[in-house]
């Protein structure tokens, strides 16, 4: 039960970014330094609040904490109701952390990839995005849930469209920020309107009519329940994204500016996984069990397909984007198992993937800021090279090689993130994948065995990437000592070591990846009671 009363602390969490928007609007446009500092300070507040909530979180209580609700539209029994449990507390913490880090990573907003575009509006939209994300993970009333869910769409559209990459022609399609933004918008809206119908169906089939996520239920696995289940599922599946609804993701992630890619991969994808756990499982328990195998098969497809696609990429950012699809497959597999280990694993995997994919996109950003492309190997297509403003004579040649010698610190951090992502024991990625597989093995032995293949392919492409970029001989283009004809002084001068600001964004994530890998109970202790409660309603 959610106690009556106003959820002050959780409201502050999303209201402060909104307040921050108003403050930013009042600062004149030319005052860029002030805008950046104030934005970072504003995003720090929800982070501090989230840490405060986390420290004071009573992990032995199975109730929703910091919860409260007040009537909003009485005619339809709509409440403004919020609260967090062991699952959402992690999501909120992850959101606040990544938003803070993203704000720092956005420092280059006026310098590198968006000359002449307003820094102020960028941060205003960024804060709106944060408000939407935090509100979403705290919401316990379907209407509030849906409003926050959609609230993330608008800023995301503009952030990708305006501050993303310039439009460029690839074959028949004009790719680039605007293309990716509309694709993202259309896909997500399609999912959300179906979800809206599902919400209404749940509302009108509950007695008394209610939008309360914590109490409504649709028992049985009849046609209605299955239909409603799919309504919710497609909405969430597009966000996760689950094959075959994933095609917006490589575009959106690749064309978005670095900090936005971080938020997209780190937090936005989690909205989908979180939604399935928060809505499909408890509200449609029997339909979920009935469709469990279907869910598991989709999970396995995601794992294998994502890994294979990643392996085929020559664009580092695309590779990272596809690896997300693969990793989110484990979340789905864990949920499908409907077992203690599986669901714990799924949530842990979301957390771990949030940290790791955040790191990966920041890493890509570091390289992109220096050389303004992200190819591991230059494309063979000369026209495409021109679209990227690259020298066509380089087409088909490797872009890097032996970078470990030039930038050792950066190489070290990349290795940490890559090893974490490929599931090296001792880092967080391993725990999430292992637990999900453990859970899945109890119910779907064959599928679990097949999905292990995904880890192998994952190891293959990550190691191969390290080899192609960081190991081996120095690329003659920046090997000054060899003094070959191909030596390009300008290119060489761009390849500098990672700087302090970039390190500041990467190190907190790296530390958490190691801490959670060595001591996963830190997270699992809090998650497990909420999962146990969830499973009680399921079994």
């Amino acid at each position, binding site marked *: 039960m959610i106690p009556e009363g106003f959820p002050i602390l959780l409201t502050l969490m999303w209201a402060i970014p909104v307040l921050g928007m108003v403050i930013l609007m009042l600062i004149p446009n030319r005052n860029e330094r002030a805008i950046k500092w104030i934005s970072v300070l504003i995003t720090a507040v929800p982070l501090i609040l989230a840490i405060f909530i986390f420290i004071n979180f009573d992990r032995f209580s199975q109730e929703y904490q910091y919860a409260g609700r007040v*009537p*909003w*539209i*009485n*005619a339809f029994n*709509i409440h403004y109701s919020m609260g967090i449990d062991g699952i959402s507390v992690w999501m909120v913490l992850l959101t606040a952390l990544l938003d803070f880090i993203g704000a720092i990573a956005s420092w280059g907003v006026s310098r590198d990839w968006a000359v002449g575009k307003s820094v102020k509006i960028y941060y205003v939209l960024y804060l709106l995005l944060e408000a939407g994300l935090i509100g979403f993970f705290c919401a316990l009333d379907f*209407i509030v849930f*849906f*409003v926050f869910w*959609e*609230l993330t*769409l*608008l800023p995301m*559209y*503009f952030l990708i*469209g*305006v501050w993303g990459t310039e439009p460029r022609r690839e074959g028949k399609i004009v790719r680039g*920020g*605007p293309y990716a*933004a*509309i694709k993202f*918008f*259309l896909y997500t*809206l*399609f999912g959300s*309107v*179906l979800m*809206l*119908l599902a919400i*209404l*169906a749940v*509302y*009108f089939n509950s007695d008394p009519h209610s939008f309360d996520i914590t109490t409504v239920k649709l028992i049985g696995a009849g*046609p*209605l329940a299955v*239909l409603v289940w799919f309504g919710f599922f497609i909405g969430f599946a597009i966000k996760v994204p689950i094959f075959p609804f994933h095609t917006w993701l490589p575009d959106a992630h690749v064309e978005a500016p670095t900090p936005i890619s971080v938020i997209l991969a780190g937090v936005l994808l989690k909205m989908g996984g979180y939604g399935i756990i928060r809505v499909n499982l408890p509200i449609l328990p029997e339909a979920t069990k009935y469709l469990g195998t279907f869910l598991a098969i989709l999970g396995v497809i995601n794992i294998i397909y994502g890994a294979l696609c990643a392996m085929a990429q020559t664009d580092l950012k695309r590779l990272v984007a596809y690896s997300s699809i693969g990793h989110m497959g484990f979340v789905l597999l864990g949920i499908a198992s409907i077992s203690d280990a599986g669901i714990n694993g799924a949530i842990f995997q979301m957390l771990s993937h949030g940290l790791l994919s955040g790191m990966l996109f920041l890493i890509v950003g570091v390289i992109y800021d220096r050389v303004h492309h992200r190819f591991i190997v230059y494309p063979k297509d000369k026209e495409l090279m021109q679209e990227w403003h690259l020298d066509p004579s380089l087409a088909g040649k490797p872009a890097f090689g032996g970078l470990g010698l030039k930038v050792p610190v950066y190489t070290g951090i990349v290795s940490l993130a890559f090893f974490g992502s490929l599931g090296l024991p001792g880092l967080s990625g391993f725990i999430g994948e292992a637990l999900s597989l453990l859970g899945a093995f109890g119910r779907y032995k064959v599928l679990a065995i097949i999905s292990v293949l995904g880890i192998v392919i994952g190891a293959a492409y990550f190691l191969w990437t390290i080899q192609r970029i960081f190991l081996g001989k120095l690329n003659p283009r920046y090997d000054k000592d060899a003094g070959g004809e191909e030596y390009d002084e300008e290119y060489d001068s761009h390849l500098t070591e990672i700087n302090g600001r970039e390190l500041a964004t990467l190190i907190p994530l790296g530390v958490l990846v190691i801490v959670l890998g060595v001591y996963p109970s830190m997270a699992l202790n809090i998650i497990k009671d909420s999962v146990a409660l969830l499973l009680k309603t399921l079994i």
Partner: protein
Amino acid sequence: METLDNIQSVSKFIPELILIVFAIAVVISDFFAKGRRETLAIIALVGLIATLISVLAVSIGETGESLFMGMIKLDSFALFFKVLFIIATFATILFSVRLKEIADVHRGEYYALLLTVTLGMFLLASATNLLMIYLSLELVSISSYILSGFSTLKPQRSSETSFKFIIYGAVSSGIMLFGISLLFGMTGISNINDIGIILAGKASSPGEVYNLTILLSILFILAGIGYKTASVPFHQWAPDVYEGAPTPITAFLSVASKAAGFSLLLRFLYSAFAQPVAEGWSHIGEVNWPLILGIISALTMTVGNLSALLQNNLKRLLAYSSIAHGGYILMAAVVLTQQGVQYMLFYLLIYLCMNLGAFFVVILIADKLGSEEIDAYRGLRSRAPIVAVSMSIFLFSLTGIPPFAGFFGKLWLFGAVIEAGSHWYWLAIVGVINSVIALYYYVRVVKAMFLEESSETGSLSISRPHLVLLIIFVIPTILLGYIGQLWKLIPSSF
């Protein structure tokens, strides 16, 4: 519910009389107010305010009295629409002041005709008699025909528009009249409530009642109503007329005239072809006209949205979008519930704000740049930031995206359909898929404004009163959905 005779009714008819008086006053002062055309607008606006006050004074506290021996009815349903019409006409007049598109010599007729359309819509929303329905429908139509021909930008185009409008209008009202005559022939009476009682079999009829005749009569009547609400397949006039008419009139037609059509649809069909049951109505006998209405609704939104995808002229795009919105609104009418009626009226209110707002932006930009093409909107974010942001809010609200009011409106339109049970789920699914299609063309405009650069820079100077008027539309477009008290003011029956 009592029926008043002609003499008793006059005191309740004051709002309509005020409209008539002011319409005449505008025409007369046109002779004297040469060179000071704004006085005419002021007279018309004062007339509307006086009407609003008298409408509220007359209607509040009434419990559905029939005036003039059952010709029109004074109830909260009619009151709601009357207020809606006054707001729409008021806004239209404000849009037209100082607009180059309307010739100064014609302003007298222009404002007077706007007041007569309003009068017609007043009567349409409250008519309960077949004759009264037809007369008021014609009053609205004929005034609209003339109004759509006022544009001086492309006079020939505007005349063509007007002519097209007349032909379509005449044909469909002719068909409707035939439907009405069938109805009258079967029952021998002209009060729609009494007709409903006879068709439901609760009273004996002077003539024979056949299901086929009822079906034909419904179809013919739907032709007339469908023309007013621009529903497929009676929508063809709309894009041409909306494009050719002066933009304030386009805004007016797409909001007020459409709302009047829906008020007629609800009152006529629900009274004559359905009988009241608990919390709603059930359609009479074996004629499943709600299904026909459902199919029309699905077709209307689909055709409207798909056609809008291809438009490069924003005015035309909004015309198709308003056809699609007619389809959405119709969704709530097919389920025959009191909630459905309430959701519909709620949506009409929100639609009024966001659609008038969007058309106002078209008016402003056309006035400054002389173009209604989407290309003209390129780079508007730096040239006129407030207008660009407001336009985005209107368009996202039309799409139905939270946190804007359009979302809450659409939420309950879908709610009405889902509530009615699983046999209507298909309509809801068609509806939501249409919402996604609609996003594409609305976002094209947003994209032009924010994501594309214009060859011309230099900010557009929009006058302060215009900006204030724009903000007045933005505020309800954001807030209307959050006001829980609003629901108490919206009638759910008549």
